[in-house]
């Protein structure tokens, strides 16, 4: 099990130009000493992910989750969408979170499906809910909402009750059935 400092050192040795900006996770307001997230720019994402998976010192074989945070109206936030990748190394039993920020009007990220196949549906979910487009994804369709749905409902500016998507639906009456 590598400590966060060791992991960052390994990364820095390989990618000297990236700062990574490592920060500990906050748990109930306190810093969790052994768990960190690092920040990666979209253009370096796939490269860094490949390294994290293959380097013997990190070996993150498993992509636990891809999710996203909408920082609209968030105090002190600079970017709008933070896409978060949670990684787990089964070999070393350690974890890391990789965060990638994208912005309107066309939030775009390279897909990591070439690194972990399991990213397929997770990226589709982030696309469906937040409208972040994953370039290179072979089948980027909506996964939870239906095909005719237009909005991205987990964006903070989407109203809770929707924009009338339910209203023009077919009504089955006793005559029509």
């Amino acid at each position, binding site marked *: 099990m590598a400590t966060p400092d060791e992991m960052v050192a390994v990364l820095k040795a390989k990618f000297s130009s990236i700062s990574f900006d490592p920060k500990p996770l906050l748990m109930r307001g306190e810093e969790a000493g052994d768990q960190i997230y690092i920040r990666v720019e979209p253009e370096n994402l796939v490269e860094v992910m490949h390294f994290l998976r293959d380097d013997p010192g990190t070996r993150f074989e498993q992509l636990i989750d891809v999710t996203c945070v909408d920082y609209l109206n968030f105090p002190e936030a600079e970017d709008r969408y933070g896409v978060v990748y949670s990684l787990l190394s089964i070999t070393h039993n350690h974890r890391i979170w990789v965060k990638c920020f994208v912005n309107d009007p066309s939030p775009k990220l390279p897909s990591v499906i070439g690194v972990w196949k399991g990213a397929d549906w997770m990226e589709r979910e982030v696309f469906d809910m937040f409208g972040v487009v994953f370039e290179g994804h072979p089948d980027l369709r909506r996964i939870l*909402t*239906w095909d005719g749905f237009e909005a991205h*409902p987990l964006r903070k500016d*989407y*109203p*809770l*009750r*929707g*924009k009338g*998507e*339910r209203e023009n*639906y*077919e*009504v*089955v*009456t*006793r*005559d029509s*059935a």
Partner: protein
Amino acid sequence: MEKHTYDPHDMSSEDLLTTRLDNLVSFFRKNSVNWARKHSLWPLPFATACCGIELMATASSRYDLARFGAEVMRFSPRQSDLLICAGRVAIKMMPVLQRIYKQITEPKWVISMGACASTGGVFDTYAVVQGVDQFLPVDVYVPGCPPRPETLIEGVMAIQRQVDRDGLKTSQERGKGLGIVAEPTYQVNVEAVADRETE
């Protein structure tokens, strides 16, 4: 031995026969098909959420929907005539539910079970249908979150009363949903279970 007040041997065989035939003929004339039908409802459990658990409890031995002749749950709409919509319905699920409803053969009835199926309940969001009756004709609404099995049985009995009244009509002839709300008729008696350990 003391003589019983009622002794069938005291009655002439003619009496017995006329009484019975009389009753039976008028009874069957009035009720025959509906009487049979109302005691053999075949529910289709469209259980999409927690209300489905209560629906299962209703069918289990403790509450025993079989007493009302509605215990044979069929998962094929072709084999059932009572759609029990138990639980919240996502808008993406609605076409499925509508199709199932269309596939049920006439005559057919619909129970909307629980707050969610009837009104959307606490799930007032873009994804959940705010009451299946917006898109389907509903006959009986069963209130509760979830309704107790007794309340659901009350709902089934409300359907039975409808069947008794107009079961031979197709749902087209019945027009809009009946819009009946089943009122719980039972009193909840909370009993202590203190003697458990001594048993």
